[in-house]
């Protein structure tokens, strides 16, 4: 069953992500993913997070698909104009990559290429419209295209943002533009997420709640100091401070959050920065997702 069918099945969907390598050596990444063969419904391939140069997410999506997974290609508006974005969408379709997570993209201020120029010709909402337009057989210029693609289009949701009003309005804009699923930024405060969902109001669009595998107190503090829109509560940071086995604590914390979140969401999206996909089966077991 592919990701789109899993979304429609009504059971809790499981996704994870992988950051393409800096270079051409895919061996570690692909080996890490092989640990979760048959355990997830889709794998997000990130598009140069923090504006650091990485291998093309589309190329890596194809490689991930060859392993038997259903890739979810992330595309940001930071590095391409509307021509290049639409070209990427058409190319993804012919390469068998049909699940998309369409994003505005991180700013370039923390890039490993200081001085790089960002594009942002489109934003996430207009990029969703572009994908849906191509499906209907026309590009953003209003021109007909020959051979329309077919996508499962998703968008991001940032429930930790304060105040929440603008984020909720934007979520509804994304729904209007044609998103058919949401994946959220990492959630560490379940009560606050529940209140966000209540404020947002009922939607038929499935929401896949994001959890992030933290593996040390240092990483937790780094998130709090450097990652906008993500706040890790003090009690969780303390758990890592007091832990003799931070990796085990990371699995426990992630599983605990996933167990609570699955009750209010259509799925769980397990994010990480390193090749620790081998811990996913444990997270799923402890969160009673298998």
């Amino acid at each position, binding site marked *: 069953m592919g990701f789109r069918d899993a979304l429609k099945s009504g059971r809790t969907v499981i996704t994870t992500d992988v950051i393409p390598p800096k270079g051409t050596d895919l061996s570690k990444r692909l080996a890490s993913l092989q640990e979760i063969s048959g355990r997830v419904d889709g794998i997000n391939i990130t598009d140069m997070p923090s504006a650091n140069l990485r291998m093309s997410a589309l190329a890596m999506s194809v490689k991930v698909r060859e392993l038997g997974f259903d890739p979810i290609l992330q595309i940001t508006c930071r590095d391409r104009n509307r021509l290049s974005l639409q070209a990427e969408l058409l190319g993804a379709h012919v390469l068998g990559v049909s699940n998309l997570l369409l994003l505005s993209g991180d*700013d*370039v*201020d923390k890039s490993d290429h*200081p*001085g*790089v*120029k*960002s594009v942002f010709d489109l934003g996430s909402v207009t990029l969703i419209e572009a994908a849906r337009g191509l499906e209907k057989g026309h590009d953003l210029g209003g021109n007909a295209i020959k051979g329309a693609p077919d996508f499962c289009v998703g968008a991001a949701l940032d429930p930790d943002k304060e105040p929440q009003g603008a984020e909720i309005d934007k979520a509804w804009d994304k729904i209007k533009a044609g998103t058919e699923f949401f994946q959220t930024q990492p959630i560490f405060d379940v009560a606050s997420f529940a209140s966000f969902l209540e404020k947002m109001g009922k939607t038929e669009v499935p929401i896949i709640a994001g959890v992030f595998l933290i593996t040390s107190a240092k990483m937790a503090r780094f998130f709090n100091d450097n990652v906008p829109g993500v706040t890790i509560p003090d009690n969780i940071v303390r758990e890592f401070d007091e832990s003799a086995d931070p990796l085990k604590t990371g699995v426990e914390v992630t599983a605990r959050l996933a167990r609570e979140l699955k009750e209010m969401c259509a799925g769980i999206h397990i994010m990480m920065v390193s090749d620790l996909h081998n811990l996913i089966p444990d997270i799923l077991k402890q969160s009673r997702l298998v």
Partner: protein
Amino acid sequence: MIVAEAKPLEEILDSLKGMSKVLVAGCGGCVAVCLAGGEKEVGIMASALRMKRELAGEPLVTVEETLTRQCDPEYVKELGKKLDGVDCILSMACGVGVQFLAEHYPDMWVVPALNTKFAGATIEHGLWEERCGLCGECVLAQTGGVCPVIRCAKSLLNGPCGGSQNGKCEVKPNACAWQLIYDRMKSLGRLEQLVEVAEAKDWSKSRDGGPRQVVREDVKIDG
């Protein structure tokens, strides 16, 4: 200077729908020089709006005031005295002035009358042209006083593209910026300077990353 031009009257009328008393605020700075938003243009705009609204059977009251500059808190303060009964301010300044009024009068609806176009100069009476891309790190010393960032259609920094023909740009009837640079460097005997390869530009000095600031500690007034 900042060069601007009036929006179509219909668009302005649309933005003033439902308003019965409008303060038309001019600016005596750049937009007065480029004949878009000074005292004279404020008078013309206010009467055009009144006439159109009169014809539509929805009369409009206008108040006219032209500040020395809308981008200076000292002058913007003066507008407060004119706001009695006003529903909306129509700013005839550049985008800076519009935002400055909105910031200083948080309870007031402020709309623009102009489209802010570029940083440029008067070429002849009635013709203004862009000269500066406000990129934050001037390259004019390397390019003989002709800016490739804004005058080359592709902002190329190492010579012309393949579309430059007979000194003209491929996309506009303008002169090719790199032809201008080459000719000027040649006439000044500095062609060897053009052989130097310019590195990829540092766009972090430009507008990427949000609004920029210039801070001058030496002229700041404490307290």
